[in-house]
């Protein structure tokens, strides 16, 4: 039969009740697809509402800058023709007075005052003070009257700041998160040394997370190996020991470390009791980097062991036997044959522990002291205490970008398809 006649015959096929076969098949397939979609729909909705939307909201907040543009709208409009080189003229002061009066009436000047204060301290009190006294100005010219209230209005920087921050979007939160700012000319410059905090915190957070990942790998690899290679009845018991921490509250585990590691704690008492250290030179192992490292390694260890275990479980013992029968000493056989086969597990465990560590909050807050806190603690500080959500969002976004960057690098090196979690 030729190809042509075959395809003709294929087109003519129908089901028993006369529907063309192709149509019937598509109908069946579509029904299956819809059913599959409905099964995942609840999770999809949940993910969109609880995961994707908050992230988008965070990203938006990190650049969102509505305060100056809306609450000082008249001033901003009047500043449009300003040359930026001299103190603005009367119309701008007129507009400013109206904005301040309207804002005082609506009681929402606090927002714009705070917003400008982030950029240049003193702006808050300048605006609040001026708005209080502006009510007493009976008639223009306003320029002289406002300058009379506070001579800061005669500074070019004040006006440049207002003009710069009138855009609905700003990079200044990101600059602040990286210890940078705009200077009075609108150039991006570093903060003076004594004001820098975030760069150092970012660096510390990354290094500590890498160190924690390394420690987890070092401690977890032998345990996972043992788990995967002992007879079932022992390995079950071991597995319970590995999982035991999951059944205890995170807070309990963290505070236990305080009891063990503090200066009057169990470990120091033992050292002193054994005469290893003198009573007056007790080691400080908590409320610093050591405390964070120890407690976080302990808490994150299972996340390293489990992926490693699941990969090792699939490596049959005869690979090592084959390597040894071919003449490799045990260590060489391990290095050349067993270890390369566990790399997917190492990758999965490491990226899991690293991402968890970089975003960890409670443990560094409890045991980190000044020295061992993470960048996340500052996100919390800006969310809860300083209420500078824009800055919190910017720091969190940077963290997110870094994690994504790590993930991409990881994908390049090992390949996400190779990751095995169980």
């Amino acid at each position, binding site marked *: 039969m030729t190809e042509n006649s075959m395809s003709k015959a294929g087109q003519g096929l129908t089901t028993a009740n006369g529907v063309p076969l192709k149509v019937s098949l598509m109908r069946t397939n579509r029904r299956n697809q819809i059913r599959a979609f409905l099964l995942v729909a609840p999770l999809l909705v949940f993910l969109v509402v609880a995961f994707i939307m908050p992230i988008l909201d965070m990203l938006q907040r990190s650049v969102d800058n509505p305060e100056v543009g809306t609450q000082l709208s008249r001033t901003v409009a009047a500043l449009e023709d300003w040359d930026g080189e001299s103190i603005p003229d009367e119309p701008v002061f007129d507009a400013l007075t109206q904005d301040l009066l309207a804002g005082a009436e609506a009681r929402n000047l606090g927002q714009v005052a705070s917003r400008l204060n982030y950029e240049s301290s003193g702006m808050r009190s300048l605006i609040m003070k001026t708005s209080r006294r502006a009510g007493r100005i009976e008639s223009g010219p306003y320029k002289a009257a406002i300058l009379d209230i506070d001579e800061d209005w005669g500074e070019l920087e004040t006006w440049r700041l207002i003009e710069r921050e009138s855009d609905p979007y700003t990079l200044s939160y990101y600059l602040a998160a990286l210890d940078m700012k705009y200077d009075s000319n609108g150039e991006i410059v570093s903060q003076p040394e004594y004001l820098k905090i975030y760069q150092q915190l970012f660096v510390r957070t990354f290094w500590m997370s890498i160190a924690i990942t390394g420690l987890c790998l070092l401690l977890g690899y032998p345990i996972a190996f043992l788990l995967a290679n002992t007879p079932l009845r022992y390995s079950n018991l071991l597995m319970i020991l590995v999982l035991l921490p999951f059944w205890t509250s995170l807070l309990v585990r963290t505070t236990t470390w305080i009891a063990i590691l503090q200066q009057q704690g169990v470990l120091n008492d033992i050292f002193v009791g054994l005469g290893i250290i003198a009573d007056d030179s007790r080691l400080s192992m908590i409320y610093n980097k050591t405390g964070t490292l120890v407690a976080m390694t302990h808490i994150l260890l299972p996340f390293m062991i489990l992926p490693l275990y699941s990969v090792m479980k699939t490596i*049959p013992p*005869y*690979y090592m*036997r*084959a*390597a*040894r*029968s*071919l*003449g*490799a*000493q*045990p260590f*060489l*056989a391990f290095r*050349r*044959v067993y270890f*390369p*086969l566990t790399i997917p597990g190492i990758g999965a465990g490491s990226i899991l522990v690293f991402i968890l560590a970089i975003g960890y909050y409670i443990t560094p807050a409890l045991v980190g002291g000044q020295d061992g806190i993470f960048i996340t603690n500052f996100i919390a500080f800006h969310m809860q205490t300083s209420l500078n959500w824009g800055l919190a969002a910017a720091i969190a976004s940077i963290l997110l970008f870094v994690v994504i960057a790590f993930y991409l690098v990881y994908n390049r090196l090992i390949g996400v398809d190779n990751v095995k979690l169980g």
Partner: protein
Amino acid sequence: MEPFAKFKNVQKSYDGVSLVVKDFNLDVAPGEFVTLLGPSGSGKTTCLMMMAGFETPTHGQILLKNEPITRLPPHKRGIGMVFQNYALFPHMSVAENLSFPLEVRGFDKAEIAKKVDKALGMVQLQGFEGRRPAQLSGGQQQRVALARALVFEPELVLMDEPLGALDKNLREEMQLEIKRIHEELNVAMIYVTHDQGEALTMSDRIAVFNDGVVQQLATPDELYERPENAFVASFVGENNRFGGEVAQMKDGQCQVRLSDGSVVEATPVAVNDAGQSSTLSIRPERVVINPDNGALPNIFDAEVKDVIYLGDHLRTRVSVCGNDEFVVKTPNSIDKQSLKRGQKIRVGWSHTDCRALDA
């Protein structure tokens, strides 16, 4: 000839209660192909693992070229091994798999390349150097495993059911391939299998294992033609069995009275006195249908139970002397007799083909 590899009174117990291998003795000559044949759990793989060094004997000695190697770790023994699941390293290419034993022995690059090429040529896999094991078919993986076990030129190669995972045609092809390589390289091989056909095809000698004990150690034809006990007779090849009691011994022959009263002339193998109970073993292809009267010492009336057509031969199940499972194999020749179920016939066999074994 001086034995090349030797098991001497080897015993093995895993739990300290029961012996998996009971007093195993075996001499392997240089270049010899010895098969350990037995059902699973008979101890044959344990013996192989002790030779490879992955298990230590509980008692006894293993010698290689007259040196005791019982305490020598596996990597120092220099024995090639082919595993049941091939155990090719999945993260290495074919060439890297083959280079591995040479690299750990410190050969230089040029020599490694030469040897790898030669080994691949031997198993006819040139051009596959860059492939990963997962990209090869079962038969190709088997060849690579074989080449890897041979590439460092060991004098002894162990194989643990290497063909178990292949389909029938491929298995037969590989049997001949392994046999050819064995003859070409003249290495000693110890081969473990539970497939008696495989053992008969390939081996110089076969050790039949059961229950941790070697039942018989002999050449394939010896094993098939002259099994020494009932287990060997039933495990190697098909056979018809009768239970009975020795009635009389005379002139190197014996008469065995079966449970239904008929008396069979047989060759005594494991019996030496009247009154002993015995199992008679007759190969199905040695039975003659409707023989001439007096042509054979044993001729009995039989009834055809069924006939199975197998292409090159016919299997006829008959009921004779109280045994309903008696099988007769006849070649599918031009002058074959067509038999039907229920037909009354006579069957006969020579006393030399009927061996009186242990009960």
